[in-house]
């Protein structure tokens, strides 16, 4: 869909993937095609009976056009049942008043669930929280990841160790990480307040303070994802041809200028990718705020209740399935808009630069 926007040949076939970085090594191993040896395996090319191959029957030709669908059928069948059907059905449910306790009784409300949302103070609070927590978690996470990736890109002793260790948080579950952090952020007996107390900062109320609690929840997200993003940036950096740096060096560009003018532009597709993924993740944020204090309301004043959590409270705390469905759809639309805006923005930028 965005084909032609960027430099020719950088979009993968299929065309619809402007959001993902598409660095491809320009020096694809061409030799491979000649030798006909599979790199990973030992599979000898099959040798079917020659007579059958000589005259492909009509049935086989039909099969050849149909068979590709057989390969995607399992995925799309599953997708239809667990992806598409829920999507459509949620839209249907969102037009009714449905209670979990009596799911058989559906009362038509039209767009009532949606209009009620716009008058619903808690909805706006959770929308605002989703946004602020999203910013508080995404921005530091990506900036720090960029810095770490830059360092990891140096020639280092024990680089595998550093990379693996930094990915460790990614392997932890939301549930486990949040339980640990909830402990660390405890008001009276938490380690964080103890350390802050050593340097003379009075106990911070990481639970009830609006900013403090949002910082605490964001910290969990940042901790889990910074290393992962650093590795993705690192991969992006490594695919930037070193000739570019050499050329910049010859022009007398400083390290910082090299970072600004070579690394960052080269990383742009990767950055767009991580921003999009993080935005989606932030919009759907749910486990961290739920488990932080174990309350569906996201704190006593809803101070860190996100949209995902509010949906859960409506659906499984108060049993209002119809309203919960409406919130779910609003979330989906929000993501579509955010991702669309992102893509548009990225496309504009690259157009502008292509035209320069």
């Amino acid at each position, binding site marked *: 869909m965005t084909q032609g926007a960027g430099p020719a040949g950088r979009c993968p076939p299929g065309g619809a993937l402007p959001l993902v970085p598409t660095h491809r090594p320009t020096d694809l191993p061409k030799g491979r095609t000649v030798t006909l040896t599979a790199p990973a395996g030992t599979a000898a090319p099959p040798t079917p009976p020659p007579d059958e*191959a000589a005259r492909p029957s009509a049935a086989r030709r039909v099969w050849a056009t149909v068979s590709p669908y057989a390969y*995607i059928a399992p*995925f799309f069948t599953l997708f239809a049942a667990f992806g598409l059907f829920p999507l459509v059905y949620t839209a249907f449910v969102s037009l009714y008043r449905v209670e979990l306790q009596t799911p058989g009784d559906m009362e038509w409300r039209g767009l009532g669930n949606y209009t009620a949302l716009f008058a619903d103070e808690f909805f706006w609070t959770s929308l605002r929280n989703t946004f602020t927590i999203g910013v508080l978690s995404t921005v530091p996470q990506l900036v720090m990841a960029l810095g770490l990736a830059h360092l990891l890109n140096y020639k280092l002793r024990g680089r595998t160790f550093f990379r693996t260790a930094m990915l460790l948080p990614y392997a932890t579950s939301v549930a486990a990480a949040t339980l640990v952090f909830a402990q660390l952020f405890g008001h009276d007996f938490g380690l964080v307040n103890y350390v802050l107390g050593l340097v003379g900062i009075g106990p911070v109320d990481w639970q009830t303070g609006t900013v403090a609690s949002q910082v605490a929840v964001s910290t969990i997200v940042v901790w889990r994802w910074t290393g992962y993003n650093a*590795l993705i940036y690192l*991969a992006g950096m490594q695919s930037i041809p070193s000739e570019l740096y050499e050329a910049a060096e010859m022009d007398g560009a400083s390290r910082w200028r090299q970072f600004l003018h070579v690394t960052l532009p080269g990383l742009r597709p990767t950055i767009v990718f991580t921003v999009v993924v993080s935005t989606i993740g932030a919009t759907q944020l749910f486990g961290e705020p739920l488990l932080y204090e174990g309350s569906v309301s996201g704190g006593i004043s809803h101070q860190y209740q996100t949209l995902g959590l509010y949906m859960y409270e409506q659906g499984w705390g108060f049993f209002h399935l119809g309203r919960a469905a409406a919130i779910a759809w609003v979330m989906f639309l929000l993501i579509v808009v955010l991702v669309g805006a992102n893509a548009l923005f990225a496309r504009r930028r690259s157009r502008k630069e292509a035209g320069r």
Partner: protein
Amino acid sequence: MTTRAGRTLHGGKVAYAILILAVLVSAFPFYWTIVAASRSNADLAQVPPSLLPGPNLIRNIEAVMEEADIGTALVNSLIVSGSITVGTVLCCTLAGFAFAKLRFRGRGALLAVTVGTMMIPPQLGVIPLFMVIAELSWVNQLQSVILPGLVSAFGVFFMRQFLVQALPDELIEAARVDGASTARIFWSIVVPIARPGMAVLGLLTFMAAWNDFFWPIVALSSQNPTVQVALRQLGGGYVHDQSVIMAGTLLGTLPVLLVFGLLGRQIVGGIMQGAVKG
């Protein structure tokens, strides 16, 4: 930190210092989990808190076994994550191969749809999905978590990207000239070549399935929990011995850490590969 530019730059002391700090920050919560899990509730209420492991690990693990049925949870999680991993890798390799190398009508559009589904929040499907599994009387049964877990748009996309590069068209052409059917090509050529990609996808899927949380807490209950459901139960409980909770967290995290410890290198490689290609 002078000389050479670009990718051959050597790391200086500052770089090491920052990286070591980052590693410590990454690892500290794990260490803290061990400390907390091996102490008692009263220890944890002390100021200043102690930073060394204590003697209560076994007692706390026994308590968590009693209170949250972590044993069942571990077995369930293993079944769920294992099935999801095998199923996902298989489905995604099939579809990824078709999208990468087969020609058929609607290929571009279908691929776009697939990628688009990555935007659907998991919360969206929960309500109807729940109604469906209720209709099938699957509430509280493992297949209600396994089947929806098999849908992985990311996986399809990942395998497609992998195969576009790793599988030369010529290889397929040659096999076709020799008269091999597509199915034959798939099993004898595609799968062996796709194996490294499948392994990475399998690892990522396993970790994601193990850690998945939103749908399982709706579909399952403490009667038949996965590890994450059991952890959530511990975190929201009345009897709230922090050291016991931490022992549960430790038990629930260990298997993934084990996988990570053994195959961390491959996972790192996989993520970086996936990032560049996909």
